[in-house]
């Protein structure tokens, strides 16, 4: 029995503001709690708030274990009346935003701090991989333990076989992002990357080569969700939320992932925002591997399925180009700080739309699209989400 989804309410009156990034480090001896605290400290300092003024907290972290958000309230001395823990990896940022926005809209909380943070000890990555999920333990890790590199190698290989994408196409995405990262002070990879460098890099899991892979690191990202009138009263530069979507475990019958859940909800995304793909001034995709960015171009409606390679060939993806993409360099240049990787694009979008970019500012950026993707439980990423944001000017 098919049911018509009910009409979505708008996010009018709610905004996101105060983008915070704690500069990443390749390895850290500090705990996840330390990185979370740094982000919250910086957020409250900028707002001129005391920690006790925060009445909502949304937390995403892989390495906070055995603690979850509740343990962190006592650890950090917070007493929120609204608390969320979002274990969705690369989908964490947008999902945190949409949940916090509804809480604020309904009056369940007024000031919700959203934080994505992870540490990276020397052996964290291997341990995270071997115990990431039950299916990973039973059916992926024992198969050469290649981690996400191997999983995305299979997805990339299949995409190349099906749609004729080449390494040069993926390379163009990576090279453009690196150009965007060159001016970002805290990007871990700031050396200019050429297409030749990209093509000549050492193979990791064919067809994935070194510059297709993100570098796991420690870091934290955060932002604040509050009522628009509060932000105006305090003089906080902010962005409005035009639309959001979220979907999990879509297209489970596709033998191998060639599309994400965005494709289910994309029409609703644009309809709710009441804008068209042409209206968007920049796009922040989740770029754990460039093939996933290409899927997002397609599934979010910038081009049709299988047209990703042509789309990339016909656009300049740098901040000055025809399709500014991953404007701070994305995870491929900045690093992947665990769940903070799911916040990176959103925090950058808030900066671009409030004219406070740390690197190159996209000219006249008024509308941006942010997309998230997370949780490769077995053979594919399960969570997808996206949001269209607008500057307040």
């Amino acid at each position: 029995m098919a049911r018509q989804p009910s009409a979505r309410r708008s996010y009018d009156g709610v905004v996101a503001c105060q983008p915070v990034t704690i500069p990443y480090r390749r390895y850290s001896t500090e705990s996840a709690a330390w990185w979370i605290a740094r982000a919250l400290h910086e957020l409250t300092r900028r707002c001129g708030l005391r920690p006790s003024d925060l009445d909502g907290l949304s937390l995403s972290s892989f390495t906070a274990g055995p603690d979850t958000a509740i343990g962190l309230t006592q650890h950090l001395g917070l007493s929120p009346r609204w608390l969320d823990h979002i274990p969705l990896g690369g989908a964490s940022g947008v999902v945190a935003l949409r949940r916090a926005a509804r809480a604020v809209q309904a009056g369940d909380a007024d000031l919700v701090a959203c934080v994505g943070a992870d540490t990276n000890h020397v052996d964290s990555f291997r341990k995270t991989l071997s115990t990431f999920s039950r299916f990973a333990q039973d059916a992926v890790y024992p198969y050469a333990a290649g981690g996400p590199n191997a999983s995305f190698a299979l997805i990339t290989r299949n995409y190349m076989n099906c749609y004729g994408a080449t390494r040069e196409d993926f390379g163009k995405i990576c090279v453009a992002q690196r150009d965007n990262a060159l001016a970002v002070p805290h990007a871990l990879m700031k050396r200019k990357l050429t297409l030749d460098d990209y093509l000549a890099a050492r193979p990791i899991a064919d067809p994935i080569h070194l510059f297709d892979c993100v570098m796991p690191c420690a870091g934290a990202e955060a932002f604040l969700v509050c009522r628009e009138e509060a932000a105006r009263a305090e003089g906080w530069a902010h962005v409005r939320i035009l639309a959001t979507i979220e979907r999990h475990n879509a297209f489970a019958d596709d033998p191998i992932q060639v599309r994400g859940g965005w494709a289910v909800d994309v029409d609703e995304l644009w309809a709710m925002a009441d804008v068209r793909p042409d209206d968007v001034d920049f796009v922040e995709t989740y770029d754990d591997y460039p093939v996933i960015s290409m899927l997002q171009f397609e599934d979010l409606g910038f081009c049709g399925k299988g047209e990703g390679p042509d789309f990339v060939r016909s656009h300049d993806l740098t901040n000055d180009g025809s399709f500014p993409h991953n404007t701070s360099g994305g995870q491929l240049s900045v690093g992947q700080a665990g769940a903070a990787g799911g916040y990176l694009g959103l925090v950058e979008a808030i900066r671009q739309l409030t004219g406070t970019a740390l690197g190159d500012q996209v000219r006249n950026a008024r509308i941006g699209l942010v997309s998230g993707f997370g949780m490769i439980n077995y053979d594919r990423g399960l969570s997808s989400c996206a949001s269209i944001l607008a500057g307040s000017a």
Partner: protein
Amino acid sequence: VSTPLARPKRKNPLARTRLPLLPAGARSRTAHGLTRAAAEGRFALQVCADCGHVCYPPRDACTRCLSVRLPFKDIDPSGRLIAETTVRVSTDPYFRERMPWRVGTVKLDAGPVIIAHLHGDTIEGEPVKLVLKLDKSGSAVMLALPAQETPDMQADPVWREMTCDPRYRRVLVSDGRNAVGQAMARAFSEAGASIVFVGVADPWKPFPGQAELAGIARVEIVPLDVTDTESVNELAAQNGGRVDIVVNTAEHVRPGGIIARGNLAVAREEMDVRYFGMMRLAQAFGPVLRLRGADGASSACAFVNLLSVHALMNWPAFGASSAAEAACLSAAQCLRAELRSGGVKVLNAFFGPLETEWFQSVPPPKLAPAALAKAVVAALQDGVEDVFVGDIAQDIRERLNSNPKALERELGSQ
């Protein structure tokens, strides 16, 4: 096409022996349903008892109807390799020293999508056949093979890593005085073992088949008496580092139940030959087998127990003997856990009455020693852990699975 296996070069005695590492062996309890199938060389997946949906990875509810009735069933292993990758960088120490390593995505005709190890002869886009194998950790993994057999398939390094093929390995058969020991020697020689050491106690005492045994290619007779600790230790000291597969053929079969025996004399003897004999072999050869579990393409790989199927359910006509076999089975389970850290398998071959003098009064069907030997070699080539050889062993196993109490009564009235 696989490159035929080359005879391994002599090992440099000064070179360090590579220590065994294991791939990750942790599995959920449900996933050990695959281990159970792999141990016997079957291919089984969960099939929903309510809607027939085939599920993978192992799980606790059907993705089509949410039923929790998901038994493992043997199913058609055919599928297609839809994408492959060659992993060159791994976080896992075991795979790091075996890079590069191919894995791929297989779409099974029965439905599920399975990430699998790839045999070297598989081709992307082509049909494949999946098999379940026990990897060095002892847990089940999926291996994709070409749909049709290819020449020298068994020489593939991935295949060899998951099996115990005797080819170019050195084998110790513990007792060559009996028919089973002699059949084993012949079978291992024919399977391409580079040396078959055959233990003979009291070599000055002639025995039937002696000349034929000595005439088998690559057989080397060695003095060995499994009831004599010194003899076992001495052989291990001399040749322990040159033995890759131990096959315990020492037998002691006498009729009679517990009361029927009337005293402990024979029982002590059978425990000494069977249970303590196995223990002596394991204590003398186990440590070096375990240490040499990753010693090149012809590493140490298996300890083979030949067990009466009545280890699983007592046959009172041979009741005391069955009890000794049960002790050996229990010890084999222990040995399996102890050898696993070296990636060395324990193969238990279960069989019913043999065509030998000790079962002279038992009616057929009976198993020829040569058939047992052939089955043991095949089981090692397949890398299985438990094999039931012959009609009686298969029959007992099925009856045991369906109603152990009925089997107890049935064997008690034979």
